[in-house]
């Protein structure tokens, strides 16, 4: 039990369960099939975006260009299908390739220059976004194949949308990556302590580039899933991703200095943010409050993290020897 309490996802899970029960007691509409369907859609999309940021947080960096990559891939994906009448599969593959390339550029420049990823991805954010606007001239693409529309809006059974399949697979793969593979463990080791991981032969170049490539791929998938959902490719896809992409991992106990992320807790963070956004709608509270609420959630999560670290430091300091 005490081992469970130490896990980041456990406390969050409790908050989710009790919060949901509480909300549905006041507003039974919260657990109506339609509402659950909408909830799952929003969780699905943000889950991929959050994972895309989380892997960069794991190595102690930030990726500000997550949304810009997602947007660029989204309009490339739709553009290829509309303008060049490309079929779905090759368009998806090219979309993934663009995400991979964007991630590679971020990682390569960061590791080769030694400049912080914050600065590099701030620059590439504008480059990717600029390419997006240059290609689209700020006009959306509307011609989307029926299969894509279907995937984004149909239900498997009950209120469960097809759209959840990919994000769930991604979450499982991410958990395996971060907990059961050398690559994932080396990323966390690198995020914990760059010097000592280099000393035992972990290549910084490899770790940083892999993390950014995976981040780029996930952002690309996120962008294409949004296209499925919206049934069109607009140039502003991804514009609002930045804040929630940090919120979910941080609420899930991630430390921005690196070396600590929790995949399950991040997923719970996404669900929590989505539930809160929706509860505010159900209670007819002005949607602008969602942003304010999100801000406070991040502050709260950061305070809790800081408090834990403080406790940990003090314990090791006072009882360092006896």
């Amino acid at each position, binding site marked *: 039990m005490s081992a469970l309490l130490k896990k980041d996802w456990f406390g969050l899970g409790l908050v989710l369960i009790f919060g949901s029960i509480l909300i549905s007691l006041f507003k039974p509409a919260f657990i109506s099939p339609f509402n659950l369907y909408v909830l799952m859609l929003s969780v699905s999309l943000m889950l991929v975006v959050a994972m895309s940021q989380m892997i960069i947080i794991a190595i102690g960096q930030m990726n500000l260009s997550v949304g810009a990559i997602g947007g660029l891939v989204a309009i490339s994906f739709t553009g290829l299908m509309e303008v060049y009448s490309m079929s779905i599969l090759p368009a998806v593959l090219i979309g993934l390739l663009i995400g991979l390339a964007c991630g590679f550029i971020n990682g390569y420049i960061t590791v080769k220059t030694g400049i912080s990823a914050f600065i590099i991805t701030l620059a590439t954010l504008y480059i990717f976004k600029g390419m997006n606007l240059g290609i689209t001239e700020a006009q959306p693409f509307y011609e989307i194949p029926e299969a894509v529309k279907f995937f984004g809006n149909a239900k498997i059974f009950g209120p469960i949308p097809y759209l959840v399949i990919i994000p769930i697979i991604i979450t499982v793969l991410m958990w395996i990556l971060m907990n059961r*593979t050398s690559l994932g*463990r080396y990323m966390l*080791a690198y995020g914990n302590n760059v010097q*000592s991981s*280099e000393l*035992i032969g972990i290549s910084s170049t490899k770790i940083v580039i892999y993390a950014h490539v995976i981040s780029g791929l996930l952002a690309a998938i996120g962008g294409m899933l949004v296209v499925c959902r919206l049934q069109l490719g607009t140039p502003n896809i991804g514009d609002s991703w930045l804040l929630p992409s940090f919120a979910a991992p941080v609420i899930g106990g991630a430390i921005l200095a690196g070396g600590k992320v929790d995949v399950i807790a991040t997923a719970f963070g996404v669900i929590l943010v989505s539930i809160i956004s929706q509860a505010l709608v159900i209670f007819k509270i002005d949607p602008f409050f969602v942003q304010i609420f999100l801000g406070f959630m991040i502050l709260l999560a950061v305070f809790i993290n800081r408090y834990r670290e403080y406790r940990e430091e003090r314990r090791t300091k006072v009882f*360092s*020897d*006896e």
Partner: protein
Amino acid sequence: MSDYILELNNITKNFPGVKALDNANFRLKKKSIHALLGENGAGKSTLIKIITGVYNQNEGKLFLNNQEKSFSSPNEAMNAGISVVHQERNLIRRFSVGENLMLTNLPKNNLGLIDYNTVAKESKKWLDIMELDIDPNTIVSDLTVAKMQLCEIAKALSLESKILLLDEPTSSLSPQDTKNLFALLKRLVAEQDVSIVFVSHKLEEVFEICDEVTVLRDGKNACESEQITNLDRQKLVKLMIGRDEQIIKSKKNIDFTEENLLDLQSINTDLGHKNINLNLKKGEILGLYGLVGAGRTELIKCVLGLDKINSGQILLNNKEIKIKSPKDALEKYKIGYISEDRKKEGLILMHDVLSNAGITVWSNLKKILSFLNDSIVYNKVDPYVKQLEVKTPSYQQIVSNLSGGNQQKISVAKWLASGTDILFIDEPTVGIDIKTKSYLHELIIELSLKGTSIILITSDMPEMISLADRIITMKDFKVVGETINNHNYEEMSSSIMGNIHE
């Protein structure tokens, strides 16, 4: 075929403007513990960095098992069997002990995924060899500093290292942990075919466990692979500093019936101090002795307002005071604090020497002039920096580029310049060479003769007995003894240890 596992012949290493090593030799015998000694700046660190592949020498050759080698990175040296044991720095703190030990070669199952049962089992082997009773699933950050260090050694063994370099391994260990570490090192040398290079400023330790000694002075060998049995403390010190050691003793007569300058009455704190009573006279050096973890530094921090005092009073000149912060202590009550952890608390590493040394005088000078310029700060600070022989190319040098000893000197210099009435000094000479140590001792005594009252925390018993006028012993966050110092080492140390082990 020689019986040396590692040989460095005629090594020269140049840095811009400095010859760090000049034809230095170092030979490590198989299965021996070899002390590498020298003052700060004598070239020890440079030699170690050449052995571990951080630097390459300009001249000279390195042989490992009679084969000439040249390492281009620390990782290469490690793969060749050479590991540096730091105090905790090489572990991933949020990973388990087992995962840390196996990190370079994590065992996988059929699916290619990490098998944590095997990780625990394999790593347990190495912990068992060291007779370490640690569960491999423990997270490193939950361990004590001493255990972390032992895990570092276990990690080096798991990497099949045949040469271990231990750099100041005991500087934050209690006497008991030090004893355990030494027993372990001796066993490793005897049973595991390991050779050890031991770097320390504590000569007692060198005599206790080392077989041979190499001393560097100004980048040259002052002696090379000398049998420890041929040396004594005086000879060794002379080799290191080039002259005889001066033993400094404080010769003062404090009138203990005089009024208290600072008086702590029945202090209980948030950190667990129980009923602390303690007083300080004008011009007195009051020593606080105790093992690491006795709560000495923590007490000072509570007094300075960094942690909470739950009950009790602090009197300054018989008037009750409430100190809110170290800044408050300095500006309102002229109480200064020289921290033990100079990296974290004492200095702003990214700033230059002048602004660090001058930081404490700023607020005083500002009142008079309402603005500051460098030359005013310079005039205040310069005499102390000179007196301490801080080796810096200029006052504009960034502090983080100086050696550890020089950083310590600057953190002391800034307090000397500030003109405080009461000074808390915490472990002033950890990691400092003998020459600087005696300068610091002279300064502390001189300061007290001029009327500054000092509370001195040190775990170095000889230092305590040569400096303090009165010694308070602490244990488990309580005061367990008070002795007036008669500067007789035998008598005082047995009386203090008696207080601790009662």
